[in-house]
């Protein structure tokens, strides 16, 4: 076995040079054992190419289907001939699972590719400094911009964050620090709350704000709808983070004579700080792209609206929705450009949450 001979005897080395012995993997297949698999794979590709060329099956779809069927068949026969039926079942299932995993990656790759291909050409510096108030909807993309939507999105998300931070955090503290009688129920309902359809959140705010209180469309109403969707994410992530704080820290605080409130405020929360920030940013990433609740609450606008508490406003998802709904060529282009900007915003939040979350370890 090649792996054994590569492992040098340890005593012959310079003692200053720390020699870490390479772990042995005697069960690992040698190149010679892998040979039939390699030939099988190459053979499958060639065979499916030939089959697609000579048979009525056509195109990439035909090739993929033939390739899957052939690879299953060939892998099964190789294992069956060399070993037994169980080995054949094993290699067939392995190939199926590899294909399934590959098919999961496919749509993501396609989405990212299309966003860049269709969204990037419409980008310009000017669009970040202009709104659509004096631009016709069928004007070329060099005119007008999406500043109003960007600012609107910033407003709704910021306000939603301000509302959900205290509620989400208090919920998490209740579940981990107070551990009251109702904590089982609360945890269950928070889980259920993360399944509330976004349109229902929008309808609820509409029913409260517009019907019962007689208000009109504005940014704050939209942010309340988003807060409903954001609270469970913040609460659940924060709970996970607080659970990781060692009980020793809490007990040390209490043993030094601090009250529970001081222990939580001065020991537990500072220790969990980066994790809690991650929780909030994850929530933000979740709601930044929400469309349905905004359709019912912010009203839409083509001009800038700096006042979040009065008057209609737009938001990036709303901008995309509106331009898509026009059904025109330029509308579609604007929608894709809007999606590009929206995805960049969401990914920025997502990356920050990732980096912070990993730093904590």
């Amino acid at each position, binding site marked *: 076995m090649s792996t054994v001979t590569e492992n040098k005897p340890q005593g012959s080395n310079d003692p200053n040079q720390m020699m870490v012995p390479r772990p042995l993997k005697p069960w690992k297949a040698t190149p010679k054992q892998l040979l039939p698999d390699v030939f099988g794979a190459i053979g499958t590709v060639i065979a499916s190419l030939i089959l697609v060329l000579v048979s009525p099956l056509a195109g990439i779809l035909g090739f993929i289907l033939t390739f899957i069927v052939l690879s299953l068949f060939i892998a099964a026969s190789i294992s069956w001939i060399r070993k037994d039926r169980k080995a054949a079942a*094993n290699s067939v299932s392995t190939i199926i699972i590899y294909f399934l995993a590959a098919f999961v990656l496919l749509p993501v790759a396609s989405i990212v590719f299309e966003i860049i291909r269709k969204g990037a050409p419409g980008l310009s510096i000017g669009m970040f400094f202009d709104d659509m108030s004096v631009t016709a909807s069928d004007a070329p993309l060099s005119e007008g911009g999406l500043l109003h939507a960007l600012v609107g999105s910033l407003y709704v998300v910021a306000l939603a964050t301000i509302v959900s931070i205290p509620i989400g955090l208090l919920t998490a503290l209740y579940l981990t620090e107070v551990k009251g009688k109702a904590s089982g129920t609360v945890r269950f309902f928070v889980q259920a709350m993360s399944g509330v359809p976004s349109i229902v959140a929008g309808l609820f705010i509409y029913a409260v704000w517009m*019907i019962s209180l007689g208000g009109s469309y504005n940014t704050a109403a939209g942010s309340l709808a988003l807060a409903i969707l954001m609270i469970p994410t913040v609460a659940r992530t924060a709970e996970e983070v607080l659970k990781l704080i060692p009980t020793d820290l809490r007990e040390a605080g209490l043993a030094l004579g601090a009250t529970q409130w001081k222990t939580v405020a001065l020991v537990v929360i500072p220790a969990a700080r980066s994790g809690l920030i991650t929780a909030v940013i994850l929530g933000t990433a979740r709601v930044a792209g929400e469309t*349905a609740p905004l359709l019912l609450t912010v009203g839409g606008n083509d001009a800038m609206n700096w006042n979040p508490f009065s008057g209609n406003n737009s938001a990036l998802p709303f901008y995309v929705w509106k331009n898509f709904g026009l059904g025109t060529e330029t509308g579609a282009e604007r929608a894709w450009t809007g999606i590009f900007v929206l995805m960049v915003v969401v990914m920025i939040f997502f990356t920050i949450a990732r980096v912070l979350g990993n730093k904590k370890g």
Partner: protein
Amino acid sequence: MSTVNPVKSEGPTPREITTEPRFSDRIFRGIVSSGGMISLLVLGLISLFLFYNGLNVFRSEGLSFVTSFEWIAESIENGTEASYGIGAMLYGTLVIGFIGLFFGFPLAVGAALFLSYYAPEWLKKPMVLVVDVMAAIPSIVFGLWGFYVLMPHAEEWAKLINKYFGFIPIFSMPGDFYSRSPFIAGLVLAVMIIPIITSISREVFAQTPLDRIQAAYALGATRWSMIRSVVIPYGKGGVIGGAMLGLGRAIGETVAVYTVLNLVYDIRPEVLLSAGGSVASLIVNKFGEATEPELKALMAAGFVLFMVTLAVNFVANAIINKTVRQG
């Protein structure tokens, strides 16, 4: 200070020893507890407000609100009387939800198995990242991608299915209308529910006792027989719970479905035909030009949607909590 008042220099007076929470703690606990109850309150308020607003519609329509197919707003110039029924929409919601599950579930569980037992170390992290990114993609992006990118391909697939399996009633095609069908909406939903099912399944598979896995290997099991005899029996419940969570998400999905589905107020058995339904899409579709009474009917539809998703989520979470989070 100590020179002025020598008595105090002996140190601070001993702390009062008591098990009673201090005043500040009682306030703290009160605030945190009431904050923790807010989510209960919000859920209660949602059902209360939607039910209250839809009450008149529930009264006038009765049970036919969920069984009849027609959605006709009152119109004075046409002389039509209002009739609201979401039966077709409810049916359509379930159909696209199950189509989504049909395609999404094997992919998601396959990916979870791959990540847990097959993937080489270097591939694990990037692939988990991709699945997480998938969960962060907004639904409107899925909607537009489904409309502009997936639909042209999916129509071709639908034609192939119809060509070879057209003799089965659900794949038959009365006309030549393949676009915006429940099949395509289901495909978009399948992609959208993959991340949630994958992450729950991974969580479930991680709970499989390692000694059983090693025992299976020691007895000479191949990787697949180990999965079949250890991982699947242990994780079955949790994975089913994950699938139900995915179904709940599919039922409540609005924007992505609305962009790729043609709403028709009728129950059609053909899934490839351009005619489907979705309660959430109905709300978005009718909301813009709804009159006051129609708006109340939409609230009632929202209430039904809320109750259905809540029930699905309750059951799913109960199953998952039982199998995963308590060991």
